[in-house]
């Protein structure tokens, strides 16, 4: 309730919006409506947020709550229906292709499904070469490029010599997702948008992937926006948690506040839905 009131007050005093000093990505009244005419879907409904530099932020919600839509808006892949995204305290400007390219040097994603993240007609080297080109290393001598790619691969426990000249479908899902992290390692963006990066991967690989993400974050000190439906995971890794329901943030705060002392019924339900070992799982809740 408190947050909703806050929402309303920010909407009312939209003329003078204050963005916190250390915020790298903020949103005010961010809205996305799909479709036109009578058949519209309100995917994201006037959300406000401030993501601070260097933090790990989790956005938690059930399927269809608008998490992925929000992440795509923040990535600049789909247009914003209403509201403003603030990047480093200023309204984000990605109106031209050149500006978009600059913006995308600072924000990069890891997608949910590693199998569909690759163009199956090109060898995986193409993905890594793109990263080097984006960082302006495209004209370096070949052996230097190979050294950089090898370093990135070894960071995620992959051997570049074994992967080079292979097609994506020759790799396992875990290998593909680790290669995506190697891509982030090469790009070193300020913000990483990780959209359920572990949901398509088995439990053993999941820990490795998360471990690598956290290691990477420590290495290049980036902001990680973690989108997940796994509230347990969110609790363990995040500094701040946003709970999303039907396109709105119903609760936000530090991980301890949100998850150990939930205020909203929806949050409580999410927490009770997590299966616990040594306890009977209450499916009726």
């Amino acid at each position: 309730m408190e947050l909703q009131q806050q929402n309303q007050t920010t909407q009312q005093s939209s003329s003078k919006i204050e963005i916190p000093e250390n915020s790298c990505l903020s949103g005010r009244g961010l809205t996305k409506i799909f479709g036109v005419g009578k058949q519209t879907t309100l995917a994201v409904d006037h959300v406000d947020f401030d993501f601070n530099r260097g933090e790990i932020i989790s956005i938690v919600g059930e399927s269809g709550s608008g998490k992925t839509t929000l992440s795509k808006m923040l990535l600049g892949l789909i247009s914003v229906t209403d509201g403003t995204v603030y990047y480093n305290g200023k309204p984000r400007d990605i109106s031209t292709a050149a500006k978009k390219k600059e913006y995308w040097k600072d924000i990069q994603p890891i997608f949910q499904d590693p199998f569909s993240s690759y163009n199956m007609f090109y060898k995986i080297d193409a993905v890594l070469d793109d990263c080097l080109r984006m960082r302006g290393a495209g004209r370096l001598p070949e052996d230097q490029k190979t050294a950089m790619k090898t370093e990135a691969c070894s960071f995620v426990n992959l051997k570049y010599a074994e992967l080079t000249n292979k097609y994506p479908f020759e790799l396992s899902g875990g290998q593909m997702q680790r290669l995506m992290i190697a891509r982030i390692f090469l790009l070193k963006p300020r913000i990483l948008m990780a959209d359920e990066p572990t949901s398509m991967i088995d439990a053993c690989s999941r820990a490795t992937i998360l471990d690598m993400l956290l290691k990477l974050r420590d290495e290049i000190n980036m902001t990680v926006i973690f989108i997940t439906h796994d509230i347990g995971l969110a609790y363990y890794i995040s500094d701040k948690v946003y709970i999303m329901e039907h396109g709105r943030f119903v609760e936000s705060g530090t991980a301890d506040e949100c998850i150990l002392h939930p205020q909203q019924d929806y949050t409580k339900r999410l927490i009770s839905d997590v299966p616990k070992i040594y306890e009977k799982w209450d499916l009726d809740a």
Partner: protein
Amino acid sequence: MNTIKGVFRSGKFIVGFVIFILILGTCIIYPLIVTSDPLAMLGQGNFFPPGTYISQEEAALEDPYTLQLPVEINKLDSALDVGTRAEIQSFLIKQAGVAESEIDVTDAEALAKLWKDNYDPEVKYQGLTSAKRKKLKRIDAAIDNAMRESGTMIASEGEDGALERDKTIRDTDYINTKDVTRKVLPLGTDNFGRDVLTELVAATKSSLKIGLVAGLVATAIGLFLGLLSGYLGGFADNLIMFITNLFTVIPSFVILILISYSVGDQARGIMTVAIIIGITSWPWTTRSVRSQVISLRNRDHVNLSKLSGHSMLRIIFTDILPYIASYVVMALILQISSGILAEAQLSMIGLGPATTKTATLGLMMQWAMNYSAHLNGSWWAYFPVVFMIAFISFSLNLMNTGLDQVFNPQLRD
């Protein structure tokens, strides 16, 4: 590579492919063997039936071989028709007094023998009108003529105007077909006396050309607009879909007729017709390419490519086009097939290529129809054409279905 192998494991595709290659091969190899102009007029006159034609003069002048083979045409049989036989029978019974049981009207030779034994042209038979008597004399002369051995005589006019006998062709004279000029016309000739088989091969070649050009033009336009509309979305999508819907709603055949008519007879060559067909049949390619692109453009690998800073053109060519390539090939095959059919339809109503220099399948149909081949039973002028059109469409559609099964996992057995 695997996909190509998979394509050639599909039975339907192979059958279609083999038929198509056979047709294509015939179009390439046949003109190398038969080098004459496909539209040369061999005959003077309409629709000569299929068969082997032997020069009559050469056959007559050739030195004959004497063979004791039964002549196929029994001269007596053809000289005595049913009415004549009935008159002979009534004369034999009434005037000559032969018993009815002795007469067999079906056996011409026995009948003629009975006649010769009983009839005497000098005798004035009673109970007959004079007209009847004259008739009997004519029958007697006809039988005499038919029973003569001599065969045919060839004569030429001499200097003084009198006929001189050059040669007599007897019943036992034969010639060897290898000695004389022969022309085999397996499918006869058409209304202008042109060899239908040679013409058909040339027509198939130009129809395939028309289909290919029409298909390529339609697929190129459709692919370009579909990619643009699907990938850009928004206003561009609305505008392109508006135009596409306009073309879809107005039957493309009507547009085709109007354009063909307004282009005029002079300009309507084979390539013009092909291009006209191409620019009227792109809408459905656009629609289907668009829908494929829309489903692709939000895929993660496209998003990742965008985020790697690639330009729109590069994303379309590397991240979208390869994924729909198989689909586009299938669309192209169908467009080729429908291009050939459209040409045939246009030509049937007289709006096809206005040319007498080359034949197309549609033009052959039109000529056959204009000269009433279907009414006078000259099946060879249009049936082979119909079969050829059917075979081409059949093989192309079969290839398409085969490809569909390979590329669409849901249809696999």
